[in-house]
């Protein structure tokens, strides 16, 4: 079929290299196999992998600061917080324009919420400032208006700043027509004459067109544009300008020297004195990079400080404790599941089929009841005026005044979760045990082993894979459980997942929730790895 020469590869009958024709033959099989798993693969990618990647991304993502405050973060790069001095006026100026624009886009409160995670009070500071920054611009706006009423009109502004072709195009544009809205263009050369104003007006015009769907020809510009104009006129010589509205501009240029002025810093201080606190600026500076470790530090009870990451105050450390507690309680739940499930699974595997099926239905019964109902039932059982306490009091085992506290603590969580997760332990144990032939134990006994020795040295080692599989299942389910601890856990029986849920749905700190979730995932994977090293994952069987 094939010839082997000293140099060439083995050839198939038709002369192609054997390897090539083999891989061609196998490719069809691979494609077929891939097509068979494709639906599941896509499903898993979309519903499992993608959310995990998204979560990982959210836990470090921090673009909001630099996107909302681009000028401020750039200007703050120069500032050294160690001097204890406030940032320069340029920073305040940048912050004025950034926050003004953010307020127009309604993004400033969102940023405030974000930064409030790091420094208390920033939330209201930004909310107030969004409203208050108009006051700065109005100082100039009013004075320009007093000088010439046209400074308060939309049209003269538009003519001064915009490309005449654009004005013509915009006027000709039919709102209901099919043609797209003409893209805004500045007048050529205006950027050189009035750099700040041109930039501010362009932002205003584009925003007006895109977000408000209005025409800049009919909208009076924001007070921010007036502020920019004032700054330009004090610095630039506009006497050479000959374009539209040159007279209005030059008239203003002559007058600005007499204008009442307000520094940006004073403007900010007027809104809120907190702007004088270097810590606010430091927080902005610390969180200006696009990616941050802040959420992860927070998730391990640390925070960013000028001297690098440091532990939080003792009275604010909670996540370490919760992680520890989650681990500990999940282990306790796993062990109590093993203890309770083992005899049941053993019984199941030895009973004749009919009885085993009946017992199996009893085991699976909890699955058919809603989780909430089961958990609430435990509440009724365990509470101080509950069934168990009533029985104990009736029997005289417990005095009426000193009823046992069995719920809203770790005990309650352990009991309820052991009950809920028990089937997940019984099923893998059962499926492994039912594959252990009874002849092993018989053989052991015939060899002289007592019942206990036969069990411990022969039966038990063979049932270990079932215990392993059940334990992994129960432990991993327990570690991420949240409804049951929420209802019966009180304060000492809650898990880290309860905090994650809180940050997802209540505090809305999704970055922190993602960081905590990522840590939990890492811990689970780490434990899985450790389990593999110590017990060996081959030693886990779900059956057969």
């Amino acid at each position, binding site marked *: 079929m094939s010839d082997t020469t000293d140099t060439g590869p083995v050839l198939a009958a038709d002369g192609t290299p054997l390897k090539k024709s083999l891989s061609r033959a196998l490719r069809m099989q691979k494609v077929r196999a891939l097509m068979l798993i494709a639906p599941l693969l896509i499903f898993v990618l979309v519903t499992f992998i993608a959310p995990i990647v998204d979560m990982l991304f959210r836990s470090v993502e921090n673009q909001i600061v630099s996107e909302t405050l681009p000028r401020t973060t750039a200007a703050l790069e120069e500032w050294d917080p160690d001097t204890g001095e406030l940032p320069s006026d340029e920073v305040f100026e940048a912050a004025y324009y950034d926050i003004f624009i953010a307020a127009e886009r309604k993004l400033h409160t969102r940023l405030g919420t974000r930064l409030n995670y790091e420094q208390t009070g920033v939330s209201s500071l930004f909310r107030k400032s969004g409203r208050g920054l108009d006051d700065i611009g109005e100082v100039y706006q009013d004075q320009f208006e007093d000088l010439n009423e046209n400074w308060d009109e939309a049209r003269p502004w538009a003519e001064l700043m915009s490309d005449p072709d654009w004005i013509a195009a915009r006027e000709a544009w039919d709102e209901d027509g099919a043609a797209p809205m003409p893209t805004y263009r500045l007048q050529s050369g205006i950027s050189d004459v009035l750099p700040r104003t041109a930039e501010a007006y362009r932002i205003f015009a584009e925003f007006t067109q895109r977000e408000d769907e209005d025409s800049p020809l009919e909208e009076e510009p924001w007070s921010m544009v007036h502020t920019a104009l004032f700054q330009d006129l004090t610095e630039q010589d506009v006497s050479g300008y000959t374009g539209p509205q040159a007279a209005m501009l030059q008239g203003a240029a002559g007058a600005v020297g007499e204008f009442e002025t307000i520094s940006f810093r004073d403007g900010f201080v007027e809104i809120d004195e907190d702007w004088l606190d270097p810590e606010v600026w430091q927080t902005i500076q610390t969180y200006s990079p696009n990616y941050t470790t802040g959420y992860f530090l927070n998730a391990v009870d640390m925070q960013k400080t000028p001297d690098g990451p440091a532990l939080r105050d003792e009275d604010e450390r909670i996540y370490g404790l919760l992680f520890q507690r989650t681990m500990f309680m999940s282990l306790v739940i796993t062990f109590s599941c093993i203890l309770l499930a083992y005899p049941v699974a053993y019984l199941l595997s030895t009973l004749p089929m009919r009885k085993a099926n009946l017992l199996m239905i009893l085991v699976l019964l909890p699955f058919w009841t809603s989780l909430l109902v089961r958990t609430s039932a435990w509440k009724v059982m365990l509470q101080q005026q509950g069934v168990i306490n009533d029985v104990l009091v009736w029997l005289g085992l417990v005095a009426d005044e000193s009823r046992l506290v069995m719920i809203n603590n770790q005990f309650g969580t352990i009991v309820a979760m052991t009950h809920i997760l028990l089937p997940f332990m019984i099923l893998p144990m059962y499926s492994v045990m039912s594959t252990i032939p009874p002849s*092993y134990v018989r*053989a*052991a*006994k015939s*060899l002289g082993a007592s019942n206990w020795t036969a069990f411990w040295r022969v039966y038990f080692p063979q049932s270990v894979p079932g215990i392993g599989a059940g334990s992994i299942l129960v432990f991993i389910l327990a570690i991420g459980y949240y409804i049951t601890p929420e209802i019966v856990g009180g304060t000492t029986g809650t898990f880290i997942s309860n905090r994650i849920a809180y940050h997802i749905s209540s505090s809305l700190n999704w970055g922190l929730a993602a960081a905590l979730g990522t840590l939990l995932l890492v811990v689970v994977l780490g434990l899985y790895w450790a389990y593999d090293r110590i017990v060996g994952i081959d030693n886990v069987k779900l059956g057969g």
Partner: protein
Amino acid sequence: MADTLRNDAFVAFERVQKSYDGETLVVKDLNLDMPKGEFLTMLGPSGSGKTTCLMMLAGFETATHGEIKLDGVSINNIPPHKRGIGMVFQNYALFPHMTVAENLSFPLEVRGLGKSEREGKIKRALDMVQMGEFGGRRPAQLSGGQQQRIALARALVFEPELVLMDEPLGALDKQLREHMQFEITRLAHELGITTVYVTHDQTEALTMSDRVAVFNDGRIQQLAPPDQLYESPDNSFVAQFIGENNTLLGTVKEVKGGYALVELDDGEVIDCKPVNVSKPGERTLVSIRPERVEIDKSRLHPDAHLLKAEVLEFIYMGDIFRTRLRVAGNEDFVIKTRNAPDQKRLRPGETIEIGWLPDDCRALDAP
């Protein structure tokens, strides 16, 4: 007489009954005595009660009624691990999580033997089954035959006086099975152990045993050495269960001089040896082994009754010829003839006359 037997019996079942559901008896009134050193096989179809008997002896089942004695002592209430009986299981039941040596060490450890003593015994046991090299392996790394040897070694390593084997060769291929049959009997005799062996394979039973107990329907049908069992079956079940057998239905005409005259259903008359028929008029099943049927008249008594037979099929089997005949309406009448140089090869369609010695033809109970 029973008392004398019982006194030197090593293993004894006395009126043992067993029922699982309280309605039907799986084992009915079993009585069995085994002297020390005997190799006894319990043979029977599945569901005949043989395995249940073995399990009762081992202690994994309790007798519903009656007594089981070991060396004169009732063991009904002794748990299995205190009976000191070695056992080889159908699928060997080697502990998969232990090495071969650990498997063998197990019965010694639970008996509290010291390490060096254990090692010596394990080595001897492994050598005994020619598996000395394999101590460090896991059962899953061994072939079926090797596992079989280890199971045997493990059952023997603690030197029990009684060894039970539950169809131990069932999973092996034919050649290996034959080899192991020989090994097991050799070991059993060398070590002088008493062995109870359960099988449904009659060849195994015949080749290995000192005595065979044929089980059917919860009872021992016949307990006898292999040759006796084959040549002189006590009843039609044993006759049909052991070896190949031709049967003809008929009615006893007369019993005289130790022989019976039987009229077959088509009217022909033959001579038989009455086994469990006694008086004329009884229905009987006549049984003749295929190799005892003669087609050469010269080798029979001149007065012997002959039967007409039509050849239906001739099969060449190497050492023998196997011919299927129609005899007295029975189309499955088989004869076997030796492949000798002068042996005639019959052709289908040919009509011949056949006959046999009356001693080889046994008149048994009609089913």
